[in-house]
């Protein structure tokens, strides 16, 4: 682990520049993606990647250069490119960062169970093959796939103020999906995949529930094929954690990103209905809503000790009892906006610069078990597992769809319905939060696929949530 660290430190120490501040962020990443589709093992897709980003500050102007050449000359050349860029673009620079403080922290961070070896490639294929073979034989089951992604990342951050931050992490993404088809409609039911990723080892596969899941997931796909469409009209909406994560992500996470509020993302990812002056004042949701930035749940996908600009991460309430308190803004955005934020300046790799990203963004558990949540609903619907997401560029008007729906009448779960969709407006939706599940309903989930930024970056984010109930939401089905 950190094999390259001594060499990198020597090379960093030998770099020469006229910049008032500079940093180096080295990333080495290896990946393995395995899948078995309809009982046929697909060829493994493996990867090895390493490179470094040099960032300089010259007269308050920052610029970066990323390079795949990690030799002394390669790093020096990248540093010079960045320095030249900073000098030449100074007349056009938006920001003066001369007074912006930098990190001098020194620390290491490791994923849980990193010292335990991961199952061998053969063992992984055996597991995937067994789950694939467990999908029942039914001519309506036309496609199924079991997959496992593993990524190892080592990152070393060094800067001219003396910071030295190392982190070594392992991310695991198990997944299973089954598609049923009746000659007209098709319905897919899934487990894990984009909805479930964690840090750790083989324990992640267990927590995902992949082992033994094939028959159940297949059965649910067939149930959906036979189910009626979701009826249209207002209902109380019970969202399970694997849909709550998407709900949190799109209509709390993105609108609270401070760089969006500052306008950086208006050309691509969009802006926000939240204004800088709303922090400390805006009642974002009902009194039951408590939202945290929490880097301290070890297995959660975006737990870390420091962000990619070297700021120490700690748990913070962004929304407490419904009141908006704090944005998702890293040190630079905090400096620009004059607001307290969190340590969420993150990059997806060595060749992209850190920007404000979600990391672990969670809803704190409430006090009701699932049976009580259901028991208190007269006319409602349970929705589970996101499959469709769409929201406006200010992150306000949204429409989301799930794989699985079940009607709730007079406090009891009733029949399965297909194509469950709902739509609402973020600024109003969270105020309709009427019940929050307790710790027994709380799930730690995450996705590797959050896109944002120019140049574009896709990054892993964690969301943990209990099941939650929202009053009087507009729900509807599909055409099939």
């Amino acid at each position: 682990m950190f094999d390259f660290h001594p060499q990198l430190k020597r090379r960093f120490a030998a770099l020469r520049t006229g910049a008032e501040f500079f940093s180096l962020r080295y990333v080495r990443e290896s990946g393995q993606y395995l899948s078995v589709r309809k009982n046929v093992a697909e060829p493994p897709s493996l990867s090895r990647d390493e490179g470094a980003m040099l960032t300089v500050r010259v007269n308050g102007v920052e610029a970066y250069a990323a390079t795949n050449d990690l030799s002394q000359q390669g790093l020096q050349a990248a540093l010079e490119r960045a320095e030249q860029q900073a000098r030449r673009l100074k007349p056009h620079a938006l920001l003066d960062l001369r007074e912006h403080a930098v990190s001098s922290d020194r620390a290491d961070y490791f994923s849980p169970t990193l010292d335990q070896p991961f199952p061998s490639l053969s063992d992984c294929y055996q597991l995937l093959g067994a789950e694939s073979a467990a999908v029942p034989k039914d001519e309506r089951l036309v496609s199924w796939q079991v997959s496992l992604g593993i990524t190892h990342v080592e990152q070393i951050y060094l800067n001219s103020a003396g910071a030295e931050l190392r982190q070594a992490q392992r991310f695991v993404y198990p997944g299973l999906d089954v598609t049923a088809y009746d000659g007209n409609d098709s319905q897919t039911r899934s487990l894990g995949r984009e909805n479930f990723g964690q840090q750790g080892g083989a324990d992640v596969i267990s927590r995902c529930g992949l082992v033994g899941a094939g028959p159940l997931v297949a059965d649910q796909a067939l149930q959906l094929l036979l189910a009626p469409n979701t009826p249209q009209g207002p209902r109380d909406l019970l969202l399970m954690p694997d849909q709550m994560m998407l709900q949190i992500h799109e209509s709390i996470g993105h609108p609270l990103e401070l760089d969006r509020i500052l306008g950086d993302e208006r050309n691509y990812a969009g802006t926000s209905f939240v204004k800088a002056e709303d922090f400390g004042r805006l009642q974002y949701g009902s009194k039951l809503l408590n939202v945290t930035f929490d880097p301290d749940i070890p297995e959660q996908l975006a737990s870390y000790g420091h962000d990619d600009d070297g700021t120490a991460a700690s748990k913070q309430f962004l929304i407490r009892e419904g009141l908006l308190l704090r944005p998702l803004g890293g040190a630079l955005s905090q400096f620009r906006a004059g607001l307290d934020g969190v340590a969420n300046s993150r990059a997806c790799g060595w060749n992209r610069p850190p920007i404000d990203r979600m990391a672990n963004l969670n809803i704190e558990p409430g006090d009701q078990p699932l049976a009580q949540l259901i028991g208190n609903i007269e006319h409602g619907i349970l929705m589970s597992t996101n499959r469709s997401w769409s929201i406006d560029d200010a992150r306000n008007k949204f429409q989301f769809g799930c794989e699985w729906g079940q009607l709730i009448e007079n406090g009891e779960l009733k029949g399965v319905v297909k194509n469950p969709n709902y739509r609402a407006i973020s600024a109003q939706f969270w105020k309709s939060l009427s019940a929050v599940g307790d710790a027994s309903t709380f799930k730690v989930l995450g996705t590797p696929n959050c896109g944002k930024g120019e140049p574009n970056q896709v990054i892993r984010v964690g969301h943990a949530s209990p099941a939650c109930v929202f009053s009087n939401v507009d729900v509807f089905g599909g055409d099939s």
Partner: protein
Amino acid sequence: MTTSKAQAESFKALVAGLSEALREPEQFTLSYAAESSAFVRFNHAKVRQAGQVQQASIGLKLINDGRHADLQITLAGDPAVDHQRLAEGLQQLRETLPLLPQDPYLLLNHNGWQSQNVQEHPLPDTEQVVGEITQAAEGLDLVGFYAAGPISRGFASSAGAFGWHQANSFNFDFSLFHENGQAVKASYAGHDWNTEGFARRFQQAREQLEYLGRPLRTLAPGQYRAYLAPAALEEIMGMLCWGGFSAQSIASKSSPLQKLYGGDQAFSPLVSLEEKVSGSLSPAFSSEGYPCSDVTLINAGQGAGQLVNSRSAAEYGLSANGASSDESPSALQMAAGSLAQADILKQLGTGLYISNLWYLNYSDLPAARLTGMTRFATFWVEDGEIKAPVSTMRFDDSVYSLLGSQLEALTAERELLLSASTYSQRNTASNLLPGALVKRLTLTL
């Protein structure tokens, strides 16, 4: 030696080294991707973030006894280091293959095809471009992104195939914001940065911005006549490209166009779509080693060809046509219609002029029913005249309606839209699309 030639020579040296290291009956394919990019982000007409990225990687596939595995390796640019990384990668794959079962869907291209396309138009100096942009945007709230530099792609195989593609390009993708929060989106992209050409494009956006200062109109949910400009139609096409034409998606019933390809649905006879890589900015070969064929995907509203990679070809008994691993188009063209640009507002009459759509997804995938938002310069038009910008609205409608029963006309002029995507690397995809006039678009929120 130019950068392109140096990269091509380095790639050839890696191929030669790999060929020598091969042990009978091993086979390989080796793909190559490199770019050197200037990236400049703008906010409030100033430079928010600027940088430069230099990256190169190879994708090695080793095949032996019906087994195969893929390894992506980042190169360092130093021949000794890169040969060492390739040797280590080869060893890793040699140790991996015996752990795998034979793959019944392995289909290799044994053709030793050759392809070469090098375009080295000189690119403008970044400082000069930034100067032109900030000068043009003086007094305006511009936000945007400039990406430029050379892109290289290569392919070689143990069967003797060799492909090389190199192109210099730039893409300035930007928005101008009115103080009321409304915005117009535009881009200036290509090979030759032309000061006058950029000024013209910028002026067009600036003129549209003036309309956005009018009082905002809020529409009620309902059904409206609408004109979808090429950039808006591109968003719908982007959704259809997400598995729509993929042989595997169609076979596994996860394509949004499964009813079209099954003959149960059709588009308007006005709609013809082709994947036309020849003459486009995309490489003429796939990363798995097949020359890309031009494919008619939809012919006069009826499902026609599919995009087939080698795996699908083997699994479903089809002919591979150079499709990518995800079987999505990279150079989509829709046939032009007959509606003249000058007649768009007149023929629209009263309804919506939609410049862009945003964040589309499926409400019901097998029914090809989509939802999404208006974004950037959407106008309310009455009696052929633009009256007011429209506040952000959500639509929810089937593509079989929008491009089928409700499609009234396509424009005679088409727009070439170059991808501004930079996920992992700068994208070379493009779309050549007309605008579409539809009789009914359903707004829901």
